[in-house]
Every structure is written in C-alpha cells, then in structure tokens.
C-alpha cells in the first residue's frame, strides 16, 4: 500500500509507511495497548480495595513493548517473562479474564490461583510464565531454543527481562550458550531505567546495548514507546532468527509510569515527580500512536473513545469474572506438587498420608 486514505476519502501522508504496517494492524495495536492500560488500571483499583494480594507489578507506560513485539510473532512461538507480565500474557493469548482471576487468586485464574501476579502461565498459547527471580527465566528461554533446534522446528523464543537482569550470571551464561549453539532466541530487555529503585547507571559502567557484545550476540536498540517501530523491528528479527541467524539481543527503551510494585510510590527517593510527569507527558506509547493515527487521518476522537470504551468493558468484565470465580478449594492444596505420585514411598512429610 503506497498511501493511506481516510475513511472520509481524503488522502493523507502515509504515517505508517516507514514501519510497513497496515492501518488495520495499527488500529489493532492501539486497541490492544488501550486494553493493557485499562486492565492494569483495573488491577490497581482491585489491589487498593484488597481484592489482590502479594506483590503486583504494573506495566503501565510499557504497553508498546508488549504489543509491538508479541504482535510480530507466530502462534507457535514462545514468550517468557519476569514478574511484570500481565499484559504480555494477554498479548500472547491468555484471556484477560484468566489473568485477572489469577491476580485475585481464583480457580478461574491462568494458574488456578496457585501462581498469582508473578506467575501467570498459558501453556496452550506458549506463554511460559511469569517468573519471580530476576534473570531466572533467561536460562529457561534458552532451553526452549534448545528444544526448537533439537527437534528441527522453526519457532522462535522471545525472552523478556527487566534491565536489572543483565547483571545476573543467568543472563550471561545464557547468552553465551545461545551463541555457541546458535539458538533461536530473542533476548529482550525492557529498559525502564530502574531496577526497582536503583538507576541502571548506578550499577553498570557500560551501556545496555553493549551487554551482549562479549557473547557475540548482535544487539539492537528500539524506542519501546513507539509501538510501530517496535513491531517493525521484531518482525524483522523474528524472521532472521527463524531463518537460522542465531540469538539476538534487543534493548527496548521504555519507562514505567507507576512504582516498582503496588507498595511503592510512583516517584520517590530514586526518581523525581517532575521526571515521571515529563515522561508521562512526552513518552506515553498510547499517545504517541494516537497522534500518528490522528495525523494520518486513520482515527478520530470519537473512534478513539469507542475503542477506549471497549478496552474498559473488557477490563471490567475481567474483574467481574475474577470476582465470581471461586477460590481454590482446600482439595487443591496438595494437587500438582508432583507430576507423578510414585506408588511406593512417601512424598509428603507434613503428616499427610497418601490415600
């Protein structure tokens, strides 16, 4: 498509052309980012009234990275992440209802209420969790890549991590092995500048984009607040990796608009209110795409409002579903500790006898 027409027929400059994105896809990405925003806001609200417990890390501000990268994948590709993963799970195909019910600790949750916010799993759509130890998911992703190569398949693996993970041994050991064995894994750092409350620059003397160089893994940096640029990059990288190029490393530059977790203030001792406000004003991935679509005549205000209403509807419905889903019964307490409860010998040591 060489140029884009508005539905009113006026020809506008083609804002999407540099990205190789159709208007339909751009609108889909907008709808998805709106959903992620409203979903996380709903979770925030539910947390505030005690419906959600434990740690809860919101992705608000970082929606562009989730939408743009996962959209570029195939259904049989794998995605794994750390503990700020609600929206990535939805992007890969876990239903918003199941994600919200998991946050609520209900049986209808993606992990039956056993995982919670940090451990959303969707084996059926190859969403591989949901991991709570910084960097701990990176070797697992490498193992998925190993299996793809072992079985001579052509899936790829997308492994998300936060910027703090690159200082873990798990990251370096994984990149080294992935390079040695040319595994089809894209390692993606969501670089939101802070590992919890510690600025990346305080704990690293080298730049993020250089972190993979020692292992011979090619790195690319992209503006994660620009969902179209993110999509375009991942579409290209996924194809290269699928074709046997070996592992890649991506720095997805982004910013978190909320605290590290629900118990943290949005700004605070480690970053100023001014900084956060400025980034929210200038770097909101939804606003950036909105302005492009407005400029291209692909969207108007009332259409945007309708899309937003749809996003709110889905988020509200998820909360309602979660509220109505029962808590896991006591009979599930000992379920799924083991895949095989061997017929001989005792596996539980707390006084529980095998039947």
């Amino acid at each position, binding site marked *: 498509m060489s140029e884009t027409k508005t539905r009113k027929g006026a020809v506008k400059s083609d804002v999407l052309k540099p990205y190789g994105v159709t208007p339909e896809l751009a609108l889909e990405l907008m709808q998805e980012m709106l959903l992620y925003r409203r979903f996380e806001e709903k979770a925030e609200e539910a947390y505030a009234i005690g419906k959600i417990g434990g740690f809860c890390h919101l992705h608000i501000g970082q929606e562009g990275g989730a939408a743009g990268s996962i959209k570029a994948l195939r259904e049989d590709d794998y995605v794994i992440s750390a503990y700020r993963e609600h929206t990535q799970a939805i992007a890969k195909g876990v239903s918003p209802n199941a994600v919200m019910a998991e946050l609520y600790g209900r049986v209808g949750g993606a992990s039956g209420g056993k995982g919670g916010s940090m451990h959303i799993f969707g084996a059926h759509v190859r969403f591989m969790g949901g991991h709570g130890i910084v960097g701990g998911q*990176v070797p*697992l992703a490498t193992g998925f890549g190993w299996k793809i190569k072992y079985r001579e398949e052509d899936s790829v693996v997308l492994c998300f991590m936060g910027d703090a993970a690159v200082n873990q041994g798990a990251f370096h050991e994984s990149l080294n092995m992935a390079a040695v064995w040319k595994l089809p894994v894209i390692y993606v750092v969501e670089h939101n500048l802070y590992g919890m409350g510690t600025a990346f620059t305080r704990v690293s003397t080298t730049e993020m984009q250089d972190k993979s160089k020692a292992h011979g893994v090619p790195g690319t940096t992209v503006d994660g607040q620009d969902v179209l640029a993110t999509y375009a990059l991942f579409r290209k990288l996924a194809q290269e990796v699928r074709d046997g190029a070996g592992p890649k490393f991506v720095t997805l530059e982004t910013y978190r608009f909320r605290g590290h977790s629900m118990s943290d203030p949005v700004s605070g001792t480690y970053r100023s209110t001014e900084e956060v406000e400025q980034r929210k004003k200038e770097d909101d991935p939804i606003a950036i795409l909105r302005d492009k679509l407005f400029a291209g005549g692909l969207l108007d205000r009332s259409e945007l409002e309708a899309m937003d209403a749809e996003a709110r509807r889905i988020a509200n419905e998820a909360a309602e579903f979660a509220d109505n889903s029962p808590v896991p019964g006591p009979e599930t307490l000992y379920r799924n500790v083991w895949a095989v409860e061997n017929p001989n010998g005792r596996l539980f040591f707390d006084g529980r006898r095998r039947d």
Partner: protein
Amino acid sequence: MAVLTYREALNHALREEMRRDPDVFLMGEEVGEYDGAYKVSKGLLDEFGPKRVVDSPISELGFAGLGVGAAMVGLRPVIEFMTFNFAHLALDQVLSNAAKLHYMSDGQFDIPIVFRGPTGAALQLAAQHSQACETYYSHAPGCKVVTPGTPADAKGLLKASIRDDDPVIFMEGELLYNVKGEVPDDEDFVIPLGVADLKREGSDVSIITHGKMIHVALQAAAKLEKDGVQAEVLDLRTIRPLDMDAILTTVAKTNRVVYLEEGWPYAGTGAQVVSMIQEEAFDELDAPILRVTQADIPMPYAKNLEILAKPSAERVVDACNKVLYR
C-alpha cells in the same frame, strides 16, 4: 546377570534410555569428547553424536536452567554435574524452577529432568569438594532424590529416574564408580523410586542409611556379627519418595535404630527419619535412636583429620552398642 562396575552400570542405563527415547539427551561439563570427568558417559558421544551428548561451558546455573526449559517443552534432559559440589551454583534453577514450575502453573508443565553426578567426599579433596548434598534437595517439595549405592541399584534407579516425569536429583559417589556388582541385563530392568532395600537381615539393631554409606554399614554389621550382634542394614535408596513402610518394618523388628549418613547432622536426612520414627513408632523403640554423620565441620584436607571427620564402621559399631546398652 553381568558383573559391572557402578560406572558401567550408569553408562548402560544412559545408553539404553537414549536408545529407547530420542528425547533423552545428556548435557554437562566434559561429558562428550572427554568421555565424562568420571568416564560415566564413555562412548556415548560416538554412538549418539554431539546433538545428544553435549559438552557445556562451565556454567552450572546456565545449563541446569537450559535443561529445565527443555524439559518444560517436552525433552527429557539428563544434566550431569561434574560433582554436586558445583551444583550449588545451579540451586536457583533447581529449587525455584524445576521443583516449583509444576505447582506454580497448576500442572501445566511437567519437568522430566534428571540432575546427576557424584555427591559426598572422596579422598582428601578438602572442604569445597567434599559435601554430601542430598538434604539441600530433599528439603524441597517438587524434587525427588535418589542415592544408589550398588551397580544394580545405579542402573535400575537411573532408568526409573529418566522415565519419571518429575525432576530427579540422582546422587552418585566418586568412591563408588569402581565398585563391582551383578547387574541384570534386561533393558527394562527398572527399580521403582520409593522402594528401600534390605541389604542385610538382622534381628538386634537396624542401621538405616542411604547411598555410599551402605558399604560402611555392611562393614559395621560384619564387625558386630563377630560380637554376636545381628545388625540389619536398610538401604533407603531414594530419600524422596521415602519408603516409610520399610522403615517401620525394621523398627518393629529390632526396636533399635542407628541412622548413618555421610552428610552433616543438622537437619540431615537422619534427623527427618528419626523424627518420623518417633511420631509413628514410638512404642516400638527400646532405646533412643542415635545418628552417625560427618563431623559438624567443613571437611579438612589432612588425611588423618579427614578420617576423623567421616563416618566410619567403628563409629557405627559404637553407636549400635550404645543403643543395645552393651
């Protein structure tokens, strides 16, 4: 029946299971071109090629985690640690991932992986290379822990471990690799996890133990026999699942128990077993249970000190005499 070394028995188990199931692969340091640091994987590279017998970098955490990931998506990795002393580096992947993913995901992922290698002290390797590590793993629900002490048990239990759909920590012994014994040739010779084995029958006192220590227990039993004492030696073989029925049977038979283990006493396997015996068979006991363990210190290098630190047949004999009030 063939007479094999413990090393050969393990090798046969790996070879047979790799022939049986193309999803089984072996990864670890020096397992391929070097034939294994202890030659357990000798010849496997030639038969199965570098895709299935994989020399890894020295990155215990990394390749352990790679194995867990591969298991999540359907392969059946056997991850060799050159020794379990080095596996501490991989504990996060074993305990946070392998042991918990099945539960955290509410059963969406099975983790059919075996982590294997030697545990415990050899000879004068000093503190960092001389630890019995089983309790680190048996502590965690989600891990099965297997400690074979004979060539036949090594083969039958390794085959069962590879076929099991849960993470299995399979702990060998550096000083066991040359031990010889009769091993069934049958390719389906599999010893189920959770079945203890009476290595010696006796009526006066029960020495309950696991892994390499069965040999110390048998030496002690031979010495006791000269004194007219018949000691029973119960080899647990697997620590999780634990054959509690066999434990209760021997307790009811002899009414006196010594627990022998290579590891440290604090929160050791013996501490767990003793606790359960007093809960479930208190009335059967004619004496308090004693434990014989490694001295509660890091292993010293000097030969004489190392001998003092390790459990010995003499110390087991002393403990048996004490519970017999002799």
